Each structure stands twice: as C-alpha cells, then as structure tokens.
C-alpha cells in the first residue's frame, strides 16, 4: 500500500519527517517497506512561471524561444507545441534535479541559450497528463513562487506492508486513523461524513435495477446513477495522487473510482449505463463453461463458483475481481452507474486464484470488507463525480443488502491485560488508545466494554485481539519488561535417540566424512538411473501435485540419490576425492516399509500419512586417506566403508550382521545387506558400474542404514560393570582351509560354537587364496582367545577345545592348514 505523504497529512499530520513516522509505524505493527519518493528528489529550483512571449526558434522548426517570468524574466527554449503566451506553467531552473537524478544546467539549444525548462506533467511524475507542457490554472499565482505550493512535487511516499488482518489500512483514511492512534496527532473528519446533493432527475429506480441471486456471496450491492457526465482527464492534483499511489490515471470517472478505493479501502466499479440494457443488473454465479472478456482484453473461462455481475446479455464483470469490456466507461459516456458492492472474501480469493487474476479490488475484497463501507464510498465518489465530471446525481441509492452485522461488544478485563502481557497499562491509557483507534469504550468498573468499528469487524473479535491493540499502541519497545517464565520442574534435554544420533553424526565427522544436506525432492527419473526396477517400493515416491519443476516433483526414497548428486557436483568442481554423509529423512508411502521415524513415532493424535525414517547414508569416491610417502591413496572400497560402519556400530555397542545382498544399484559381488539381529537396517557396497556411469563416476562406495533400529539396539548408557578376570588368556592362531564359497562369518561362527564358552573370541585376521592351499580352497587365519574366569587354563584343556573346533570345522568342509 503506497501512501503519498501529502495525502496522509490531509487527514492526520503527525508533524514529523516521514522517516520518523515510518519508524513509529514499524514499532506498532505496520511495516514500512521503504520511504520512497515520486517526482524530483527535492522541490528546490522548481517554480511557477508565466509565459510572456513565444517566438519561433531561428534555426529549428520544432523549438520555440519563450520569455518566461519565473521571478525575473528569462529565456527558455521549449519544444512543446502547446506552449503559448499568457500560460502559467511549471518551470525548472538551472540547478534543479530532475526525477531521474540528472541536474539541470544552462544549455544552448541550436545556438540559443535556455535558462531552464518548462515541464510536462510526466516530467514531474505527476501522472501522464495531457501531451505537451502542463498548463496550470492561473489562480493569482505569483511567478517565481515555489511550485511545491500548488503541486505535490518531491512527494515522499510511505510504502506500507500491511498485514492481511488490517484491511482498514488498505485505505489512506484508515492509515490516517492508525497514525492518529500511535502519535495522537489530530484526525480530520471522516471524508464520507456528508453526502452529495442529488440534483438529477427522477429516482435511481427509473434508471436501473439490481437483482442479487446469491446473497451469501454478495452480502451488499449498492448502485447510484449519474447523468450529464463529461468524460475527460482528471485534474492534476488527482492525477498526481494516483500516480504517487502507483495507479495510472485513465479518465476522470475511472480515476474517481480508484481514488475512492485508495482512500476508503472499498473498491468501486463504474458502468456506462447506456451500455447496460434497461439498466438491469443480475448477480449470479457462472454456469459451467461460461466465458467472458475482462477489461484487460483476455477471454476468461469461468467455473460455477465464480460470481458474475451480468446484464441482460450476459456477464459484464467478474464480481470483485475485474470488470468487463461490454459496459466500460469511454469518452462517449454520459450516464454512469456506480457499483459499490460487498463480496464474500473467501469466494473472491478462491475465484481470483482459480482465474490466476488478482487486482487492486480483489486483493481488498479477499480479506473481507464490512458491508458498511459501501455507502462511505458512494458518498465520497458522488461528490467527486459532481465536482470533476459535472455530473448530476440521481436521487436514491439502490441498496440490496443481506443482514448487516451489528458491531460486536467485547469485555476487556483489567486483570487480563496485565496477565497476558506482563506489563501494566492504566485504564485511562487503554481508553485513550482504543478511542483513537475508533473503538467505542464504556468503563465497567476496572474492566471495559469495547465496541468494534466496522473497519475492524473481522479482525478484532475477542478480548485477546483488543489486548493486542492496547499493547501495540502502548508501545512494546518502550514499556515491555524482559522476564523469564517460572519453569520450575521443567527438565530440558535431548531424547536418548536424539543423543545417539548426534553421537553417530559426530562419529562420521571424526571418521573423515563431510556432512551434506540434500534436497528432499528428486526427479521421477532417479530410480531408473539408480537401476531400481519398477515395482520396487523405492521406485514410487510421494509425488507433489504442484512442484516447482519436474526435477523436484517426488520426495526422495533414498539418501543415495542426494549423495550421488552432491558427489558428482563436487568432483565436477575439481575435488580429488569426496567422503560424504547425510543424516536425514526419506519419505515412503505408507505400508511400503516397516521402518519408522527415530524414536518410534512422532507426537500427535493423528498419524502422519507418510513414513519418514531417519537414515544415515555415506558415499566415498577416491581414497579415504590421501596418498603420501607413507602409503595410502587407495580408493575407498567395500571394506573401507564396512570398517566405518563397524566403527559406528562399536560406538553404540551394536553388533551388525553383513550378508551378501542384491541391491540393484550395487556391485553384485561387493555389496551386503546390513542387519541388527534379525532386522535388516540397510545396505553397504560398491556401486554398480552403470550407476557410477550415470553420475560420471569411475567408482564409488557407500552405505545407507535406518537409524531407528540401529539406535534401538544401542547399549550406550545401559552398560553393567563386568569384573576383569585376573587369570591369563591363552592366545592361539588357527589357519583354516575351506571351500571359497564359505563366508568367513560362517567359519567364525563355527569356530566359536566349537570352542564353547571358554573360547572368548575368534577374529579373522588374514585370508589367503593361492597355490599353497591349492585350487578351490581358501585359507583363513583366526586369532583365538581362550580364558576361564576361575583358573589358569592348562595346555591339555586348550588342546581339547582345539580338537572340538577342528571337529566342528569338518562339518562345513573345513580343515586345519598345517
């Protein structure tokens, strides 16, 4: 909302600079986006001039040499064809700064020195005005006196960011009332206080009729009729105000409707009555498939919820949004029907969105105006029609109104004000603030009975809304103390799951990975590029109905896609290697997954409709450790990432089970499923060559695990002390030869089972495949630890256990390597 400062001051002059007022407005709830200006940055060197003589330029056909009294005679060369002796005109003297910022100097035009410039309305940013220089009414203006005394040049404009609840501040008078409330500067009378004289012939009913078929969507429709209308340009002051407020001047009738809207927040619409057959208007909803051409020349397709203003031939305007071309006011118009209506805001908002059409009018109607505003606008507009268009107002007003809501009364309890705000506001102050805002106030002991004005009808409906009004005018910045809530008994903190998630994220960082934050959105082609077949639950994610682009139209079902994108982008930026991780959610359609969110579920009675497991994913391309004179530099492979994942598990005290697995996006021989006990929690592996190629990578290795089951298995914080035995362990190495397809995990399990409880651990520390064990065999070396809690084991005991192990190994085709 752009508010020209001079217009505001007509109703309430705060007596301060615009910048200072802007600050006060901001601190009381009306954000001022900026204090702009139209016209020249300064009014200095802009004066009133009187053209004394006009002579043709000796060397230029289109230029004329004028003698102008601008507080002393001077020569000014002028190119406008309409310049003539005797005119009173705006003049810029050398030294003046034009709206564009350029400084005016003396200039020689084809050999004749020009000592200034005679200005057009456009050059002063006073609107488009007539072509040529602006000719002022000669009302005894003194040549040489400041132009700013008669024209709003160098006009500061407050650009307000009005919050959607404050529909009153979408009109200049409403802003003036707000300024009055917050500064207590006097407020001028309401501009609709007096109605215009109705000097026209007959009664409005003789000229026009209105039928409202949808009263719920059109709570009020008022119309007045004007005859003897002379269409023409608006006077400069009106054009200047509209221009400063961001509206293009059109003609006097249209300008009046815009002006009154900007003043009262109530939009108006003017019809050429002669183009409305029989003057009959009907308000109805559109029929399915109905179309009409709006004022902007576009043919619009309508739906059955859109409300139309129709004449006997069909739609002539979309209610509250935009008029139509059929009954548009033109230069030939002599009779005007002025519509001022009230519409259902929700319906206007819906239709405006549906049509993709938003106007100054619809942006006000959609916030729900009060039906009382209609007649305010009619009264002001009527006087302007008479004054500026020479029109005669036909007596009477068509007023089709549903029930107009009565002003609500709200009780404001004294204790509530202080109880909610934590600051005391004296009753006398409360009354003063509310009255300045236009509320009716009756003291009721310490409490107040407050009557809400029409402008605030839908905004202030409860005690708490009144308290806000009191608080903001009182001034939070000046008066509100800073205290802390009494929060005795409250214990802050992270949940166990949140703590363990932080532990894992920290561990990933400490293991050398950079954390990334990937997009939750992906493109529908991602599963195909990841080799994920149709039918796989991960191939169909949650799809958005209104994405910004196809590339961001589906919610991700894996972290891997995000990680690959980030990896590729970094390698394209010349990174030699990347080790990335993400701790974030994936989004799975309900029923597709047994995974749940961290902590088992979200708070709230109604379950979410999509499952959002929190996952930890990693991707490494290139070496985990850089190459150096001490070695390193090998690209991260399956075992590098497996070590990382085992490291994470060790930090939680969880044992992971790895089994050869088949993920479509992984190398089939170098990948595994990852489980905790019997629950599969994710995958690990080197990426499938086709997937690598799709992201321009030579090779990459990654993993992705669901955090909820991982964290659920953690023993962190639940450990019990186990006494350390003082009896020595017997350490032995064991070389086992087995068929190559037997996994080492199986060998280890077998050894542990064979060794019984005195065998405390068995860890594979080497693998050998080659001549020495023969073809079709592999050799694994295990380190065994035998220990008893209550005695030192004898050689005989250990030998016995060892033979039991050998026996067990035989059952899986294993033997001891000599």
């Amino acid at each position, binding site marked *: 909302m752009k508010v020209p400062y001079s217009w505001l001051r007509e109703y309430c002059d705060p007596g301060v600079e615009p910048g200072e007022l802007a600050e006060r407005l*901001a*601190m009381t*709830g009306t*954000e001022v986006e900026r204090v702009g200006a139209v016209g020249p940055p300064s009014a200095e060197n802009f004066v009133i001039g009187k053209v004394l003589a006009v002579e043709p330029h000796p060397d230029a056909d289109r230029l004329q040499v004028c003698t102008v009294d601008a507080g002393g005679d001077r020569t000014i060369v002028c190119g406008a064809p309409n310049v003539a002796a005797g005119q009173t005109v705006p003049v810029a003297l050398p030294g003046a700064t034009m709206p564009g910022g350029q400084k005016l100097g003396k200039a020689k035009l084809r050999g004749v020195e020009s000592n200034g410039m005679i200005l057009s309305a456009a050059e002063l940013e006073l609107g488009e005005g007539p072509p040529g220089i602006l000719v002022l009414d000669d009302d005894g203006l003194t040549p040489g006196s400041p132009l700013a005394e008669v024209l709003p040049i160098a006009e500061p404009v407050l650009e307000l960011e009005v*919050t*959607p609840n404050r529909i009153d501040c979408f009109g200049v008078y409403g802003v003036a009332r707000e300024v009055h409330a917050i500064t207590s500067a006097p407020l001028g009378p309401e501009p609709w206080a007096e109605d215009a004289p109705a000097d026209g012939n007959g009664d409005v009913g003789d000229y026009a009729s209105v039928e409202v078929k949808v009263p719920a969507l059109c709570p009020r429709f008022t119309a007045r009729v004007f005859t003897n209308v002379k269409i023409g340009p608006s006077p400069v002051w009106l054009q200047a105000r509209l221009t400063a407020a961001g509206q293009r001047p059109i003609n006097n009738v249209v300008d009046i409707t815009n002006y009154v809207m900007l003043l009262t927040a109530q939009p108006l619409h003017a019809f050429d009555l002669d183009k409305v057959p029989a003057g009959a208007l009907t308000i109805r909803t559109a029929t399915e498939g109905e179309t009409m051409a709006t004022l902007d020349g576009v043919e619009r397709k309508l739906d059955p919820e859109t409300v139309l203003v129709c004449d006997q031939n069909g739609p002539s305007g979309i209610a509250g949004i935009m008029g139509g071309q059929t009954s548009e006011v033109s230069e030939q118009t002599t009779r005007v029907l002025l519509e001022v209506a009230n519409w259902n*805001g*929700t319906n206007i908002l819906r239709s405006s*969105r549906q049509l993709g059409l938003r106007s100054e009018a619809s942006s006000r109607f*959609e916030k729900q105006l009060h039906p009382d505003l209609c007649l305010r606008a009619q009264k002001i507009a009527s006087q302007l029609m008479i004054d500026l268009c020479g029109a005669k107002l036909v007596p009477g007003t068509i007023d089709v109104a549903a029930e107009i809501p009565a002003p609500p009364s709200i009780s404001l309890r004294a204790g509530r004000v202080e*109880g909610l*705000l*934590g*600051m005391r506001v004296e009753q006398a102050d409360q009354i003063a603030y509310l009255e300045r805002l236009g509320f009716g106030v009756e003291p009721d002991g310490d409490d107040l009975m407050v009557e809400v004005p029409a402008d605030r009808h839908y905004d202030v409906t*409860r005690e*708490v*809304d009144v308290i806000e009004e009191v608080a*903001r005018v009182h001034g*939070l*910045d000046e008066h*509100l*103390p*800073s*205290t*802390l*809530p009494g*929060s005795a008994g409250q214990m*802050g*903190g*992270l949940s166990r799951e949140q703590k363990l998630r932080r532990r894992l*994220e920290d561990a990933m*960082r400490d293991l*050398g*990975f*950079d*954390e*990334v934050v990937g997009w939750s*959105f992906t493109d529908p082609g991602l599963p195909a590029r990841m080799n994920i077949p149709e039918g796989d639950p991960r191939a169909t994610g*949650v*799809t*958005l*109905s*209104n*994405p*910004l682009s196809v590339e961001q139209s589906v919610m991700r079902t894996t972290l891997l896609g995000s990680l690959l994108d*980030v990896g590729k982008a*970094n390698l394209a930026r010349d990174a030699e290697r990347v080790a990335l991780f993400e*701790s974030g*959610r994936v*989004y799975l359609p309900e029923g597709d997954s047994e995974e749940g*969110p961290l902590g088992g579920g*979200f*708070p709230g*009675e109604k379950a*979410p409709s*999509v499952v959002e497991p929190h996952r930890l994913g990693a991707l490494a391309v290139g070496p985990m*450790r*850089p190459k*150096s*004179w001490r070695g390193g530099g090998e690209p991260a492979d399956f075992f590098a990432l497996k070590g990382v994942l085992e490291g994470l598990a060790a930090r939680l005290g969880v044992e992971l089970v790895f089994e050869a697995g088949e993920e479509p996006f992984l190398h089939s021989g170098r990948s595994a499923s990852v489980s905790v006990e019997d629950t599969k929690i994710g995958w690990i592996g080197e990426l499938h060559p086709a997937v690598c190629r799709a992201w321009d990578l030579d090779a990459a290795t990654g993993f992705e695990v669901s955090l909820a089951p991982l964290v659920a298995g953690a023993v962190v914080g639940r450990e019990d002390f186990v006494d350390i035995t003082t009896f020595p362990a017997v350490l032995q190495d064991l070389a086992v030869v087995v068929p190559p397809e037997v996994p080492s995990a199986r060998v280890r399990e077998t050894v542990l089972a064979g060794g019984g409880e005195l065998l405390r651990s068995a860890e594979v520390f080497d693998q050998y495949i080659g001549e020495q064990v023969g073809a079709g065999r592999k050799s694994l070396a295990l380190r065994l630890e035998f220990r008893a809690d209550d005695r030192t084991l004898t050689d005989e005991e250990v030998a016995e256990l060892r033979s039991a192990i050998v026996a067990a190994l035989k059952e899986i085709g294993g033997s001891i390597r000599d």
Partner: protein
Amino acid sequence: MLKRIEQIKSEAEGAIAAAGSTAELEELRVRFLGRKAELTMLLRGIADLPQEERGKVGSAANRVRQQLELKLEECAAELEASEISVSLAEGQVDVTLPGSPTHPAGHLHLITRTTRQIEDVMIGLGYRVIEGPEVEHDYYNFTALNHPPGHPARMLQDTFYVQSDPEVLLRTHTSPVQIRAMETQAPPIFVVVPGKVYRRDSDATHSPMFHQVEGLAIGEGITLADLQGTLVEMLGAIFGGSRQVRMRPHFFPFTEPSVEFDVSCFLCDGSGQLAVGERCNLCKGIGWIEVGGAGMVDPNVLGFVEANGYDPEKVQGFAFGMGVERIAMLRHGVPDLRRFFDNDVRVLGQFL
C-alpha cells in the same frame, strides 16, 4: 694353581679391553665366567684340593671372578653408550617430511551445527527437543493453527501439496508440531522443534526447502514479557555479548498478540556504525537485525487441544520461530541462501 688364576685374569682382561661390541663382551662373559669356563670349573673343583690350598685358591679365584665381572660391566656400559649413540645417529629422520596422514578431517554441515547450537541453548532454559513429520496433514499445518479453510492467511505461504491426498502437504513451518506436542503432553509444556520446512518459492532469498526452529512454552501465567526475556537469553547465547531484543507487533494467525523480533546488531553493537560515518553493512545502519516471528499462542489454537488441559482461560504461553539458515548467514557471513544446499566441500570444510 694360583699362577694359572693370574694367567686367566690377564688373558681375560686383555680380551675384554679388546672387545668391540656388547655382543663380543657377552661371548667373553660366557668364555671366562660361564658355567663351563675354566675359572668356574676351578672353583667347583676346590673341594678336591688339599686342605691348606683350598682357602688361598678359593679366595684368589673369587677375587679374580669379581674383578672380571666388574671389568665386564664397566666395559659393557661404555660400549653400550657408544652403540646407542651410533644407532641414534643412524636412526635420524627428516623431521620436515609430512606426518602419516590419518583420513582428512570431516565436518558437520553448518545447518546441523547451528540447529544444535539453538537446541542446546533452549535445553539450558529447560526445553525438550521434539520432532514432527514433514509430510503433514492440512489440519496440523493450517486448521489447528487458526487458518480456517479459504482464509487468506493460508496464502501467506505458498504450499506444496501431495498428489495422492489434497489434505496432505509439505509443512510450511515447524508450528504444526506445537499442536502435536500439546496433544501428547498436558501443560506445562516447554519444547523446541527443529526441522525442515517447505515453501513454493525459489529465488536468491527463498529456498523451497529450508530449516526452522520453533519454541513453545505453555503454562499458567506465562506472558509476553516472558517471551521477550526468553528471546533475550537465547539470542544473547547465539550471537554473543549482551544483546538487546526488540519486538515489533505483527500478524500471524496462530498467535495473538503477534510480533516479529529483532536482535541488536552484533557487528556494530546496535549503533548502526562501524566507525564514525561508516555504515554497518550487516544491519544496514539500522542497528537491528530481523530474526523471526513470535507471539502469544492464540486462544483458538489452544481450543483445538483444550481436551488435553489447554483451557485458554487457565493456561497461556508463547511460541516463536526462526530460520536456521538465516541465523547461520548472520552469524558466519554467508552471503547467499543457496550456498547451504550446494554442499560444496570447499565451503563445508570452512566450518570446523
């Protein structure tokens, strides 16, 4: 016999003096003093000697043995010292070569770090950290937050909707978790809610996905002044020093009164100037930096959870929310929102 002992002595002393290494000395020890050495044998055979010779021979042999042991020790110490210094000299390395690399340092994303920082400050003030779904029901995102269907306030934030269900959307703020939390826990409640949020908006200053942190405090007698005090504590902890906070009245459907809050600029300490006449770039000379939105939870919102003890006549409180990226941008001078989602390792690595 005594003569032989003297011979052994001089022979051994000569050999010890000539020894060039500790290993050689060890050989000499075995040769002269070992179990099968002549002197040892001699001492062992003393019992076979005539009575009168036993004492003389025995003491002479023992004396020589002791002297030799001493000599060996002295010599060993000398040789050892020189051997160590030789081995030290040989073991010298070029200390200027790079150390064995561990893996390069990893980094948490600045968004994670900033979120954790805010969480930790609020935990210190007695708040629990809770989380909610990002794919949310319209009811929690709008209706229960006092945005009735068709209300223009719903248009304040352009919303992504889910194709399969028009009542399901990507949450536009973390505020729906206020309702979820209050449904689950009776008052008093003090919670802080971090998380991703989504708005259908993408340009230099808007990202369709970003992060918020929300705070909610409801109990008996919690006031707007308490909100201000809480913000002072929180923003002081985040931005350092004794920060001032100012609240500007504003409009949000789910709070009443509603405010936007600013923190005094930590670069110019609220003066708007860095040096005399030099405008502070961070706050644009205003002295204040806009941080987020807040207010007293609207009674209508409490009405949606009244059954769980949230009677608006009995309990009241505040909520506040702010953008994590914005805090991080201010705190670390990140110029552009999009840098957070580039995930450029050269940027990630700047934040240790």
